[in-house]
């Protein structure tokens, strides 16, 4: 049996502490893309990790190695390659499960987090239509039922619930936000005895605010509602134990956590996955098929119809191995320092406002900001000219921006490979934005 890749990463062991300059240099050396230049030879300053992370060499190697030596369809066929590919595919599932503290059988592969959340919404929809038999009873929505989200949500954790409500007649309600973008716990009474699902983000992709999971889950539990957590921004940057958080479902994406695009994860509590009717149907998820009807595999295979993204799961396994070797407490410590540096630096620049919590407590190094009198596109263009990549726009969170009184924003977000020099270069260029656009050419 060939060794399963994903355990071969040689990442720096942070020991839970922030990185020394030498360790950070060693980390950066693992990310080939960071060596390139942009816009007439400027060194790249990549501050768009919240959109997608860069990938370490071990992830690229793992995917290539799979195609070079072990490529085969999984969970079908009995030849040697099929066995190896299936084993690697399932080992990746186990590694992801281990990272977030759940069982491998509770991890469903998806294309991305968006698909994971939609999978839950459509399974509830199908249950409401009567699919899934008696087991799916607890998932069925009835007249008067409510689904609760928050104003902080990425569209991926809002629109699927709007659509579910439109299909079933349930009512969508939401928790409000404080002026600095945190979920306002004074609005928790929105969760009431009619609430059947509470879906919220673990950490905002705009403000970086980490949600108060405990009180929200407690409110949901008190009324028997299911809890769906959008963990896209938390799993790559913090130690996350989904069992300890006591959520029923959680979705996250491989490409934001140093892994490839095209693979994501849906965690579902085992008894709930078992109760859920399938969503996508076809090959690989069936037991007995006759011309008239079909019986389905148990989870997670029940939710993995058709040929899967095997190479990507193996790449993600390598990414998980890399993150685990670094230690996510160390990743969090490093990024917390960068976040503090960003916030302190922005506070020094006149007429730049942080959209979100102004201090470093309970937040990621993801900082959205507005430059007074300068549109975010222009801010982003000016930064880009200096080789600094930030995100501009509404970041798939229009209601959140509306709540904060802006149409769009610019956002800088750090990752494990981000350096203090990256942050300083960003701050120095940001300070020149308003003078360029508003105060006339220097």
């Amino acid at each position, binding site marked *: 049996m060939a060794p399963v890749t994903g355990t071969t990463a040689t990442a720096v062991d942070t020991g839970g502490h922030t990185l020394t300059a030498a360790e950070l240099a060693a980390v950066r050396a693992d990310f080939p893309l960071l060596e390139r230049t942009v816009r007439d030879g400027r060194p790249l300053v990549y501050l768009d990790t919240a959109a997608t992370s860069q990938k370490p060499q071990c992830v690229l190697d793992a995917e290539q190695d799979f195609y070079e030596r072990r490529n085969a369809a999984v969970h079908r066929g009995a030849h040697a390659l099929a066995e190896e590919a299936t084993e690697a595919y399932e080992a990746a599932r186990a590694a992801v499960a281990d990272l977030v503290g759940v069982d491998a059988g509770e991890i469903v592969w998806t294309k991305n987090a968006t698909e994971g959340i939609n999978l839950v919404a459509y399974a509830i929809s199908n249950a409401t239509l009567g699919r899934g038999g008696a087991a799916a009873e607890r998932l069925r929505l009835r007249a008067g039922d409510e689904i609760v989200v928050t104003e902080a949500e990425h569209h991926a954790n809002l629109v699927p619930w709007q659509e579910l409500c439109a299909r079933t007649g349930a009512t969508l309600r939401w928790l409000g936000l404080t002026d600095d973008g945190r979920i306002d716990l004074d609005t928790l009474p929105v969760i009431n005895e009619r609430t059947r699902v509470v879906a919220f983000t673990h950490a905002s992709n705009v403000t970086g605010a980490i949600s108060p999971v405990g009180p929200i889950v407690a409110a949901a539990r008190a009324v028997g509602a299911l809890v769906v957590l959008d963990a896209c921004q938390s799993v790559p940057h913090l130690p996350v134990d989904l069992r300890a958080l006591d959520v029923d479902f959680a979705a996250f994406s491989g490409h934001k956590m140093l892994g490839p695009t095209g693979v994501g994860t849906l965690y579902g509590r085992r008894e709930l996955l078992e109760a859920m009717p399938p969503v996508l149907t076809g090959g690989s998820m069936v037991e007995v098929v006759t011309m008239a009807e079909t019986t389905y595999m148990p989870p997670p295979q029940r939710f993995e119809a058709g040929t899967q993204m095997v190479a990507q799961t193996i790449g993600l396994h390598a990414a998980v191995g890399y993150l685990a070797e670094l230690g996510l407490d160390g990743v969090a410590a490093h990024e917390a320092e960068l976040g503090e540096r960003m916030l302190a630096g922005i506070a020094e620049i006149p007429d730049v406002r942080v959209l979100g919590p102004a201090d470093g407590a309970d937040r990621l190094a993801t900082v959205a900001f507005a430059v007074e009198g300068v549109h975010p596109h222009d801010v982003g263009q000016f930064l880009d000219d200096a080789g600094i990549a930030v995100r501009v726009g509404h970041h798939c969170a229009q209601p959140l921006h509306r709540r904060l009184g802006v149409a*769009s924003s610019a956002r800088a977000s750090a990752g494990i490979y981000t350096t203090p020099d990256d942050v300083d270069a960003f701050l120095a260029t940001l300070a020149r934005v308003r003078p360029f656009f508003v105060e006339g050419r220097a």
Partner: protein
Amino acid sequence: MSSTSSGAMEQLYQQLILDHARERHGYGLRDAADPSRVGESFQVNPTCGDEVRLRVELSPDSGAVSDLSWEGIGCSISQASTSVLSDLVIGAQVSDVVATSDRFSELMQSRGAGLGEEAEDALGDAAAFAGVSKYPARVKCALLGWMALRDALIKVSKGE
């Protein structure tokens, strides 16, 4: 630290663009003298949420644009482009407006190559946006107001 790499920002953000972004000619929707000769369009750039609402009024013989006004939010490129558009279009023959709009679209699709001196001269102040064509992600910003104008002209011709 140099102010920008190779002056690319100064090339993109010509002084004329920054001035128009601040002044915004034609800004503020005006009521029409004759509502039957008015066309209005609302356009949004879904990637950034920028939006423009633009209103045109044709002359009694429908041959010329007698008035144009607009409102919107957006980046300096979209705001300046719509402001310049106002200057170029008010009082112009509709056929000339369509030709200018086509030429401007062509300039935006030129990927930095431009259209040559003669064609750009014919665009007047709108030629200042030539640098935008080097940045594919910003072309939609420069075209937002022009898209609204074309849509508004179609609507008025259909009597909508």
